[in-house]
Every structure is written in C-alpha cells, then in structure tokens.
C-alpha cells in the first residue's frame, strides 16, 4: 500500500496516462456498443413491448411470434447482464432487475408502455410514471 502511494507520488505522469487510457477504452466501448435493433425500437414505439417492474420486457397485448422473439431475445440478454452485475454487487438477480426496472420505467419515452406497481399496463405520458414506492427517487 505504501509502495503504491509512493509510486503514484513519484510518477504522476504514469497515473495520468493510465487514466487517459482507461477513458479512451470506455469511450471506444460505448461507441462500439450497438444501439437498439430497429425491430426492437419499432416494437417499443408501437407499445407491443413495454417495461415491466422487474426489469424485463413484457407484452401489453398478446404478442405475435415476431414480437415475442424480439422480447425474449432482449430478456435473455438482460438476464445475463443482471446476473453478472448482481453477483459483482453481492445482490440477487431479482433485486438488481427491480432496481433497473425502476430506472427503465423512468426512462420510457412518451407513448411507450410500462407496467404500474399494480401490474396494469400504462402508456407513458409527459407526467412522471407510476412507480413502486421502493424505487429510489
């Protein structure tokens, strides 16, 4: 510990270079990450899929085979991400998904569908969405 501090004090340039490299990596990572698949974006905008309170996608209306495929595909990927991140935070997938769901519902655009705490499907308006009172502000 002492050695590390000592090294950092002696070589501020190394630290700067390291953090620069990290920043570049983060930038390239976010740039390389894809945006929403057009089919998924269209299904969201049409209200065929919506954000559930558990952090996964749901179907406000009975889905077609294609819409179900889109939703399940995304949900499988989400579950994988939740599982990794929850393990890193020593939390359960359910809790991680719920916390994400709070934010995903908040991030819905007007016209998109989300699930209210009572389980009903709502269309997002310009008003704040109906969220579980356990959601952080």
């Amino acid at each position, binding site marked *: 510990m002492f050695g590390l501090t000592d090294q950092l004090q002696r070589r501020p340039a190394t630290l700067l270079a390291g953090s620069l490299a990290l920043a570049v990596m983060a930038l390239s*990572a*976010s740039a390389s*990450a*894809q*945006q*929403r*698949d057009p089919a998924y974006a269209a299904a969201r905008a049409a209200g065929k899929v919506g954000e559930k309170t558990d952090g996964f996608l749901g179907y406000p209306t009975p889905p077609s085979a294609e819409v179900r495929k889109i939703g399940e595909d*995304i949900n499988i*990927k*989400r579950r994988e*991400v*939740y599982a990794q*991140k*929850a393990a*890193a*935070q020593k*939390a359960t997938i359910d*809790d*991680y998904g*719920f*916390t*994400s769901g*709070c*934010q*995903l519902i908040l*991030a819905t655009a007007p016209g998109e569908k989300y699930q209210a705490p009572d389980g009903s499907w709502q269309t997002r308006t310009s008003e704040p969405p109906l969220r579980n009172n*356990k*959601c*952080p502000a």
Partner: protein
Amino acid sequence: MKRHALTNRARIANTGTMQGTRFGKRWSAWSGVSRLGVVMGSALALGGCISVNAPDKPIVIELNINIKQEVVYRLAADAGNTIKENPDIF
C-alpha cells in the same frame, strides 16, 4: 346392618360463604370505603401523568421492506451505469 351416629361430631356447616350474618367470609362495610379511597388516591396520583395504552393491534415491523429499500438504493447507481453501458438491450 346397624346405623351408628358419630358421637361428638362437629356442627353441620349450613352457612354458605358470604351469606351468613355472623359466620363465613364477608367484607365489612368499611372495606368498601377504604377501597374507594385507594381508587381515588390513584386517580389523583395519575392526574398529572401521561397515560400509555397498549395498542389493540399487534406491532408489525416491516423489516423485509426496509432491507429491500436499502438494497435498491445501494444498487441504483450501478444499475444506472449498466443501462448506459448496454444501450442495445435496454
């Protein structure tokens, strides 16, 4: 078969509790007065006190909800980053 009466037997108890005039348990007239005094005395003593009543419903501590809330707050920042890092699936 002969019947024999006991000699020198005790007097048959025919006085019910709290019924007789001379025998059995009975509160004297003064005992009621002294009880009244005790009641009045405690009422006076309690006059300046805060009365605490036991709630008629059981006390429920919703511990699960508090734990969940704590976890959700702890995860919030990390979940926000995760969503930003994976724009293709959120």
